[in-house]
């Protein structure tokens, strides 16, 4: 315990660099501090996005106007979407846990470009302020939805340019993080850490980084074209000038569908770390998991058109996109089978991270299966733009990211803060969040199948019951989130001191003290022939 106490004092949390206090954090190039900067920024923005989401669900508690007008509802779902997608789920796991853990997991002292890493956080902050400026100043809050669809995005009189520019700047943050991770993984792995000895989380960060690098510029250019269309009327997307609004949808989804994999791949990586540790068993099908990761990253790049089945695309393209969409299910299913097989005959330790990881699989499967319903052309025509779609993507995007994020934060909490969280309250938070989540989104599948359209602030009386259940679910979820945050904040300050490896994990981050020292490793570790990230034999 004495040793753990001294590790806390010698850690990156207390390291004295060039600056003191807050400046010592916001100008730090230490990957661990940058990871935490992202954690605090993302959590702050999540609270804003959550409050907007709660306001929307409150509006839908009863038919007709409840608390806001239709125009306010349009603005609310737009800002909710922009915040949740561009500021939370896309940077989420890679920026927080990728930054904190990647160098530790591969035995490196830092990422390849520490200053660029800090710059990426500053870009993130700049992007956040630009989007908030669109919300608070100018000629009205944007009301296009987070997708900024043309032609409305260049016709609407609301304050679009700061929002578009904000998303553009946030894209730079994402690109720089991706670039940093690719170079770090290629050039800074510890001696002996061959590709096939890398932890799964590092592998998923690698796949994600490639998507960040290759897909983000497409949306950046597309948003610039929308801005030029608004300012100069260049006619790329404007049908009145010979442009094609469906081209906007192609370009937007060429980025924004792979963006789903930017969110979900690291989520899968985190779950792939938690399950073997809490099963005390070698991960099942390590190579299959790696291949499926890279297959999802590649095939996921080619399925964007399934967002556009009813937009007026050619039949040939619809068939191709439907087929490709079904193909993505194969590597995703391989992962699920491998996680379950890892648990089989394992020595399972029922701690909070394991609950989150297991419920991630449950939530992800519902999200995945309903995705197949939407990927099928015939059913898509019926369900397109209904509450069913909203339920599906919240199961995948919000469920996928939040359940894995909370699995990760509880799993690595002792490593990050050098203290243990309160197990009882962590489980209370998990069950509340889980019940809230399922109650919030499952009724929306039903509502969508019955024909309730998305993005409407009003509805017919027959949709009332399911909407009440959904709104109640949002309150339970919010209370669960509050319990989780209060428990973690309190534990970070007053929790029991953690040892270096409380979960008996086998990846390299568990070989250094908790919290890690500023320089990570006293000496760069050497990975032996028989060592491996999941060697529990």
């Amino acid at each position, binding site marked *: 315990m004495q040793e753990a106490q001294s590790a806390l004092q010698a850690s990156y949390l207390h390291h004295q660099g060039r600056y003191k206090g807050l400046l010592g954090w916001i100008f730090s190039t230490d990957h661990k501090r940058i990871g935490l900067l992202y954690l605090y920024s993302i959590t702050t923005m999540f609270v804003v996005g959550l409050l907007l989401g709660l306001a929307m669900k409150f509006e839908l508690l009863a038919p007709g106007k409840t608390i806001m007008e239709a125009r306010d509802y349009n603005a609310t779902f737009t800002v909710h979407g922009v915040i949740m997608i561009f500021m939370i789920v896309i940077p989420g796991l890679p920026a927080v846990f990728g930054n904190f853990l990647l160098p530790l997991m591969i035995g490196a002292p830092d990422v390849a470009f520490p200053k660029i890493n800090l710059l990426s956080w500053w870009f993130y902050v700049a992007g956040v302020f630009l989007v908030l400026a669109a919300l608070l100043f100018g000629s009205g809050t944007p009301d296009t939805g987070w997708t900024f669809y043309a032609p409305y995005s260049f016709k609407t009189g609301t304050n679009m340019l700061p929002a578009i520019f904000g998303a553009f700047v946030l894209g730079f943050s994402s690109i720089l993080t991706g670039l940093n991770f690719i170079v770090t993984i290629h*050039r800074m792995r510890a001696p002996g850490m061959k590709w096939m000895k890398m932890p799964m989380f590092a592998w998923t960060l690698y796949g994600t980084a490639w998507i960040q690098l*290759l897909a983000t510029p497409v949306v950046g250019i597309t948003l610039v074209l929308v801005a030029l269309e608004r300012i100069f009327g260049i006619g790329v997307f404007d049908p009145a000038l010979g442009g094609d609004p*469906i081209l906007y949808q*192609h370009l937007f989804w*060429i980025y924004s569908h792979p963006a789903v994999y930017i969110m979900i791949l690291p989520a899968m990586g985190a779950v792939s770390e938690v399950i073997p540790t809490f099963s005390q068993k070698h991960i099942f099908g390590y190579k299959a998991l790696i291949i499926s990761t890279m297959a999802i990253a*590649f095939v996921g*790049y*080619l399925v964007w*058109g399934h967002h556009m089945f009813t937009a*007026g*695309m*050619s*039949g*040939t*393209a619809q068939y*191709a*996109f439907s087929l490709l969409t079904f193909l993505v299910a194969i590597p995703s299913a391989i992962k699920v089978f491998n996680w379950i097989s890892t648990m089989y005959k394992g020595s399972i330790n029922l701690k909070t991270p394991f609950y989150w990881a297991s419920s991630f699989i449950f939530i992800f499967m519902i999200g995945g299966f309903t995705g197949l319903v939407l990927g099928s052309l015939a059913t898509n025509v019926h369900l397109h733009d209904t509450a069913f779609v909203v339920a599906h993507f919240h199961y995948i995007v919000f469920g996928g990211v939040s359940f894995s994020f909370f699995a990760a934060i509880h799993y690595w909490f002792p490593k990050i803060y050098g203290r243990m969280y309160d197990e009882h309250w962590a489980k209370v938070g998990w069950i509340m969040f889980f019940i809230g989540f399922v109650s919030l989104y499952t009724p929306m599948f039903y509502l969508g199948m019955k024909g309730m359209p998305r993005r409407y602030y009003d509805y017919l009386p027959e949709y009332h019951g399911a909407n009440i259940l959904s709104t109640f679910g949002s309150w339970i979820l919010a209370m669960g989130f509050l319990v989780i945050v209060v428990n973690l904040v309190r534990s970070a300050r007053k929790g029991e001191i953690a040892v270096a490896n409380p979960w008996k994990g086998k990846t390299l981050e568990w070989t250094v003290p908790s919290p890690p020292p500023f320089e990570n490793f006293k000496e760069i570790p050497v990975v032996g022939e028989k060592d491996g990230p999941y060697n529990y034999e």
Partner: protein
Amino acid sequence: MSNEKHHIVPYHVYVVILGALLILTFASIGITSIELGSLTVAAALFFAVIKTYLVLIYFMHLKYDKPYIGIMVGAVFLLFIVVIIITFLDYLYR
């Protein structure tokens, strides 16, 4: 990383490539004065591809790097081509 050898490209190679890029730029402008009909875009892309190739090979040192870097760059272009082909499954059959 510091133990690796870096290939030093002689200045005259850079000057030759710069000259080639300038000539190709003027050629890509000059060709617009010829009425090529549906091949106008193809002609512009032809010159752009050669210029990109020269920049990648010489200015970005692909010629002197390990082969896997070239393979990775090639894979990116392959992905780009696949994306274009899929997009045109819409435009050509609409």
